[in-house]
């Protein structure tokens, strides 16, 4: 590693502020030629902002960038490209209707470049069919195309945003080898990811971002410090407040029994034999790094995706084969993560948004507006929202919309409430209101399943916590038994898989 030499890129005190959020806060980062530098962090840690700055798409609000020791201003993507910085975004910037060649022309490659493109493709063993339409290429072929384009344009610093997110295991491995090869040639590779395993395999240096700041940096990576990395990503665990709670009742409200799904197309995660029981009057938290099967789990629990009948029980009723509406009738309510456009229709009024999922608001296909208005007012009053029922939902602030959404689902008096990070992106007071409402629901005997990547939220709510990793679920630990080590290990996928057996014993007992 070229540590004595002038680093390829050095970033000092980089800052970027969006309105009230500090996306990047005093980031210092040094990237040397010939190294694979991993940038780790949760969603919202500030990785994307940093990538956009490096690509020249966003200008920083403070700090300096030095390229080979010279101060530079990355004021446009062109400047970045001229210096030799190439960014491969997670969602490729390709025109699907054009052929590979046409796309390359569009990216500014002329005939001699095309020739070099072919040479590069042969050299790295990355075949790309030049005359195919991009829409007929697989995800990995598209990625090869983008990567080869960067190499043809003589990129010295390659920034790869979640490059393996769309790849299968075998393809991922090939890709890792390629990254090492590129580094060996004296280029620098910045790998943005939240997969620890990858980082350990391929990176020389890892920098961990959390909440816009650099919280740790590790060199000489090996399996021994995987846990350190995970701990850095997770951060300090929130203090448990031993609020007096009634113990959960023994009756099962929701039972998953060897719940499995197939992976969706070439990406997505397959859920593997999840077994877990949530009891009445209990809040179960499901933690995990994003992209480990959360979306899939929510889809299969809410009924958006169906499975075999017996793999999911609502109380004693097999419901795996039922759709959303039928599960709703059985007493399942769902607060989705996307509150605008999924959980609600922004262009409609609050009353209409109550009508969206509330039962008993119509008779023989005829809306009962009187009842609907009463129900809407009840929901609004319960959450101290002072808008009239005819307000458009889009006129509510984010926090108000979320309180409305939670309120609407609670008003269905469900037996099981499924909530995807219910306090995400709302202010503190609003989050407290929502947490209080969920705890109140728990006290009434409802079972609540909270799927979230935010540990603060999970610790404020959960009675037990399980971790989802690559479609597998850890045993659900009572909160008293959850410590940083255990959680970090499980979230990084280092937990012994024997957990499943342990869980079966627990469920049986």
């Amino acid at each position, binding site marked *: 590693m070229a540590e004595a030499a002038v680093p390829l890129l050095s970033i000092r005190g980089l800052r970027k502020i969006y309105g009230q959020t500090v996306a990047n806060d005093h980031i210092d980062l040094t990237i040397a030629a010939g190294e694979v530098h991993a940038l780790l962090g949760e969603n919202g840690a500030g990785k994307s902002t940093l990538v956009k700055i490096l690509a020249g798409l966003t200008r920083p609000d403070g700090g300096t960038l030095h390229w080979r020791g010279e101060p530079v201003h990355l004021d446009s993507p062109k400047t970045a490209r001229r210096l030799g910085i190439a960014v491969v975004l997670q969602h490729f910037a390709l025109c699907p209707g054009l052929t590979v060649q046409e796309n390359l022309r569009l990216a500014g490659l002329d005939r001699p470049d095309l020739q070099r493109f072919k040479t590069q493709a042969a050299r790295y063993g990355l075949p790309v069919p030049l005359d195919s339409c991009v829409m007929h290429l697989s995800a990995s072929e598209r990625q090869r195309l983008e990567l080869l384009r960067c190499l043809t344009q003589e990129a010295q610093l390659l920034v790869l945003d979640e490059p393996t997110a769309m790849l299968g295991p075998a393809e991922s491995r090939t890709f890792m080898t390629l990254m090492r090869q590129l580094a060996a040639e004296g280029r620098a590779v910045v790998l943005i990811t939240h997969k620890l395993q990858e980082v350990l395999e391929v990176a020389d240096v890892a920098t961990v971002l959390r909440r816009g700041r650099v919280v740790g940096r590790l060199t000489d990576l090996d399996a021994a410090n995987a846990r350190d990395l995970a701990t850095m990503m997770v951060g300090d665990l929130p203090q448990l407040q031993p609020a007096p709670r009634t113990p959960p009742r023994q009756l099962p409200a929701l039972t998953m029994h060897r719940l499995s799904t197939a992976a969706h197309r070439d990406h997505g995660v397959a859920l593997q034999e999840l077994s877990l029981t949530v009891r009445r009057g209990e809040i179960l938290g499901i933690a995990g790094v994003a992209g480990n099967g959360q979306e899939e789990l929510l889809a299969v629990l809410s*009924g958006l995706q169906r499975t075999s009948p017996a793999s999911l029980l609502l109380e004693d009723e097999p419901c795996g084969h039922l759709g*959303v509406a039928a599960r*709703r009738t059985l007493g399942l309510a769902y607060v989705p993560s996307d509150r605008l*456009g*999924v*959980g*609600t229709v922004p262009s409609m009024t609050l009353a209409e948004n109550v009508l969206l*999922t509330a039962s008993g608001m119509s008779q023989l296909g*005829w809306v009962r507006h009187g009842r609907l208005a009463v129900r809407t007012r009840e929901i609004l009053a319960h959450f101290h929202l002072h808008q009239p029922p005819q307000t458009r939902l889009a*006129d509510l602030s984010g926090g108000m919309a979320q309180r409305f959404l939670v309120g609407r689902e609670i008003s269905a008096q469900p037996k099981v409430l499924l909530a995807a990070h219910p306090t995400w992106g709302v202010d503190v007071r609003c989050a407290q209101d929502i947490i209080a409402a969920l705890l109140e629901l728990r006290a009434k005997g409802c079972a609540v399943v909270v799927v979230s990547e935010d540990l603060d939220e999970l610790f404020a709510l959960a009675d037990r916590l399980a971790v989802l990793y690559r479609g597998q679920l850890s045993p659900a630990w009572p909160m008293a038994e959850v410590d940083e080590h255990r959680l970090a290990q499980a979230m990084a996928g280092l937990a012994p898989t024997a957990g499943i057996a342990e869980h079966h014993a627990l469920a049986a007992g």
Partner: protein
Amino acid sequence: MRWLRADTALLSGLAAMVLGALLTALAMKMLAIPAIETIQVFFVDPVADGFGRRQLLITAAPLFLCALGLSVAFRGGVQNIGADGQLMSGAICAGGLALAHPHMGVLLLPACVLAAAAGGMLWAAIAAALRIWCGASELLSSLFLVYVAQLILTALVSGPWREPGGYGMETGPLPDGAMLPVWGGLHAGVWLLAILGMLWWLLERHLVMFFRLRVLGEAPEAARYAGYRSDNLIWAAMLLSGALAGLAGYLQIAGPLGRLNPDLSSGYGFAAIVVVFAGQLGCLGMALTSLLVALLRLGAENAQIAMHLPQSVGLLFQGVFLVSFLLCQRWVPILLERMATMTTRRRTAHGA
């Protein structure tokens, strides 16, 4: 908020009328036709007497009926643009029944009404089935089915159904029992449609199916989340709009035409799309726009006779008004909003 939005719709409608009039004047200038006389011939003469006004309502009726159906489909994001074909299919079914069984007595009229609705639904069902079972765009298939219906209609009226010893490509007159009764110079369809128009806002406000279609159109993910069966909703929207278009076909043959001919649709199914968008999917808006479109059609006919202007001038005016409506719908709210923000800014600046 609600009032402001209602005002915005009204303002954009008025702005569209003004813009349309200006552009029309410009077009007249370019065509070197006398403006005052043309306006007189186009917009005043056709409705100068009671007969003309009744003609206006009779012409507007099938337009409005098609538009009501289409507005339901468009709300749900179901792009049924083949109302013209569904109209012809309805007319073929009802007309065929009436011609084949002229002696059904009092049952003939209701049977024809049902046949017309069924014919329209059948034609829409083909497009719906292709969309739901094969994933084919209903926009294209419903449009192409228009031509299929047109060819079938032409084949029938020039072949097996052609009036023996008649002059043109048309059937013989429908039996009296199949004709709509005439009350006060207007056929029953117009009266019933007026009542339906008044009830429509009630249906819009109260029918769960209409609500669900709106959800499907405005936020399909929310419809999925809420557990709505989008396939069923698409079926319902297609069948309803098809049925109403089929009935519009019946209004034509059992009202002003009295028989089937290849031109019985007069493009009403396509003009209805104009009516739906210019009327902004609202019942009153659609009623007014169908009257306007009907007036333009009558005006064009009148201008052809009185001023020897080609009928395409009428189409030109219709196009001008459609473009004005669409432009104003898009830009008037944006302009209003900009003006509002500017005023607030100025106020804030004064405050500070």
